[in-house]
């Protein structure tokens, strides 16, 4: 029973911190300091810095370009990155399609796709949700029909395709057998965004960032060799991805940073002639949220300790997403509350609001997504009710 990291792990943490202190490009550092929203080219600039260092894909096998870290190192690295405010890397290549190709792809696919995911030369997006297939994803209707000439012809619409406007490739779940039971007729297909008939149209989020798109497929011709795994076997693979290590899913590092920001704002917001941070009732509010976060941190450590021992994610990780996403939102809610009327500011046209606060309202809006994406919290609860509590479906 031990709550601390080993001296070697602490040394590793220092190495990461040192790297973050010296190697973050100035334009990224400047934006990190005000917790601003990073544009795609900034995200990719940072991706390439990490790539050159050999740290861009912590959970990939060493022979494919991973750094060869264990679960604790991956966690420490991820936590330090989150706390640093540097751009969160796009997960679609590195954390989603990459690991799926590593696990289920053939050699040709591995050689074709993995090196460019790693280097950032090719950017990816995810084509899962559709206008009528959200939580009920298996009801998806985008079809891929065998044209008899070695291709699938794809028709349909994907939505919430985050960063599709910047992506070179999209990985999709498509229906390849309409007669089969709904989960059984689905394949996992890689589609070049330059394919004629593929069109991505960005939508603004409530945070006024162009994060996601509607993506249409009109008779897009895709070579059959772009199917990963067996035809009609896509659903099982997509689900298998969810069984991977999930020690970062609680975003504890991000919330740690967000809460520090709340305190910083409260320390220079004045009420009755003194900083709000010294006001007893506000202090208690902050403490209440921080304690929630600290409880989740220990929970996260338990999940990590399990991962270190090679255990599959158990009940202790299943709650990280639910509670972590709620805390992320509550941090921004509290920041807004601390700011009072300053929370009205919508980006910066004047200097009424200090630079470090001008992104708060945007994040406050955008982070409403945390309880929705990656399986809404209600779906997470359905899964726990069924899989862990054994309640009838």
């Amino acid at each position, binding site marked *: *029973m031990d*709550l601390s990291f080993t001296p070697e792990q602490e040394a590793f943490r220092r190495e990461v911190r040192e790297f973050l202190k010296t190697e973050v490009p100035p334009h990224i550092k400047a934006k990190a300091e005000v917790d601003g929203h990073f544009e795609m080219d900034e995200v990719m600039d940072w991706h390439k810095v990490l790539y050159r260092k050999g740290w861009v894909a912590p959970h990939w096998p060493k022979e494919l370009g991973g750094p060869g870290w264990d679960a604790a190192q991956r966690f420490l690295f991820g936590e330090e990155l989150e706390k640093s405010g540097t751009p969160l890397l796009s997960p679609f290549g590195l954390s989603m399609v990459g690991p799926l190709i590593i696990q289920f792809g053939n050699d040709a696919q591995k050689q074709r796709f993995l090196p460019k995911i790693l280097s950032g030369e090719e950017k990816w997006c995810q084509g899962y949700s559709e206008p009528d297939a959200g939580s009920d994803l298996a009801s998806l209707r985008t079809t891929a029909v065998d044209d008899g000439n070695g291709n699938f012809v794809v028709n349909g619409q994907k939505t919430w395709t985050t960063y599709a406007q910047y992506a070179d490739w999209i990985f999709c779940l498509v229906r390849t057998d309409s007669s089969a039971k709904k989960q059984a007729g689905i394949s996992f297909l890689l589609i070049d965004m330059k394919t004629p008939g593929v069109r991505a149209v960005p939508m603004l989020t409530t945070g006024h960032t162009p994060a996601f798109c509607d993506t249409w497929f009109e008779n897009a011709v895709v070579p059959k060799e772009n199917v990963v795994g067996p035809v009609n076997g896509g659903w099982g693979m997509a689900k298998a991805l969810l069984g991977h290590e999930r020690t970062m899913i609680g975003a504890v590092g991000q919330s740690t940073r967000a809460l520090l920001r709340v305190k910083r704002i409260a*320390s220079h917001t004045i009420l009755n002639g003194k900083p709000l941070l010294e006001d007893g009732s506000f202090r208690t509010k902050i403490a*209440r949220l921080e304690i929630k976060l600290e*409880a989740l941190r*220990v*929970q996260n450590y338990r999940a990590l300790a399990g991962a270190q021992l090679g255990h599959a994610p158990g009940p202790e990780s299943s*709650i990280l997403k639910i509670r972590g996403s709620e805390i992320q939102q509550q941090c921004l809610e509290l920041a807004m509350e601390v700011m009072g009327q300053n929370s009205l500011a919508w980006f910066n046209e004047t200097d009424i609001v200090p630079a470090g606060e001008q992104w708060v309202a945007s994040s406050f809006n955008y982070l409403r997504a945390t309880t929705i994406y990656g399986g809404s919290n209600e779906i997470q609860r359905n899964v726990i009710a069924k899989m862990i509590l054994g309640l009838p479906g």
Partner: protein
Amino acid sequence: MDFELNDDQKLLKDSAAQFTKSSPVTRFRKLRSHGGGHGGEVVSHDRCWEPSVWKQMADLGWLGLFYPESVGGLGLSFFDMTLVLEELGKTLVPEPILASVVLAGGAVLKGASVEQQKKILGPMIEGKTSLALAWAEKDGRYDAGHVSTTAKKEGGTWLLSGEKVWALNGHAAETLIVSARTEAGISLFSVPSNAKGVAIESAKTMDGQRAARVRLSNVVLGSEDLLGTEGTGLPAIEHALDLAAAGACAEGHGIASTVLWMTVNYLQVRKQFNVAIGSFQALQHRAVDMFVETELLKSTAMLAGMKADDSDVNERRRAVSIAKAQLAAGGKRVVESAIQLHGGIGITDEHDVGLYFKRMSVLNALFGDEEHHLSRYASLPGFEGA
């Protein structure tokens, strides 16, 4: 980073789990303080726990589990003690380990000389006596520094006067550990419960246990009854309260996990509209929220169990306040949901869920409530961030 129990800890936990088979909730029901209001039985048991069972616990080594071997204990860690408390919480075992071994014994351990520790703790370790810490006063809420009980030095003796409330196990203890104000500050005294001038009023508590109001009027004590050095009582009491709070978190986790699965089981068997009510999403999600809170209670109880005996006071306070505030918020939510999901049967005295609800509520009111721990946490160094 390691949350696995070692083999000895697994054995300890197993033996505590085994013990609860001989002390199911039905045993607690027979022993509990009862009555009052309409239709209640008259008080059936004036102690609410059994000396013979206390002796069994002594034989298992539990009554000195985390005390050093030099005073007759097993020399295990405080975390090991919390493993036992968690298990005993699952069937509401009423013997006063938390009150006597952890709280009162903890104060002796932190405040008394080794000789005094041997003298006071020795007989308890053997199961012959039990202790109570009388620290709380009427208008002090959770402030252990609010002490109006006085101890005056007269020649070679001390004269104690004052009134203490809610002394846990005070109704049964042979020895009371009492805080009193002396010239040098707050000091701890060992007071035989049958000493002249000590008046003990046993009081039922909501959870079916008992505590006491202790009135002291010119109680004469010897110089050897002052524990440790005069004026050094407060840090010892505060440490003991942190140990007890951590113990309460472990017990609270035992309660939460018990009512969680009791409730899930009920949702599976109770039928309405021709189906198990556990198939309704509104109820499933409430049950999942119970699960989420229970998992977090497990994490924070472990944190507190590992840190409550830490020599770094701020580390200790930080961990304990996190866990106790989590128990207040999460533990409450779990037992409240358990009753709600049971429906009408959940508010009958015959169903066990209400007993767990009461015990959880008592644990939340003891050793600092949510407000107390939130404000203590917010006053720790470093809270304001960089």
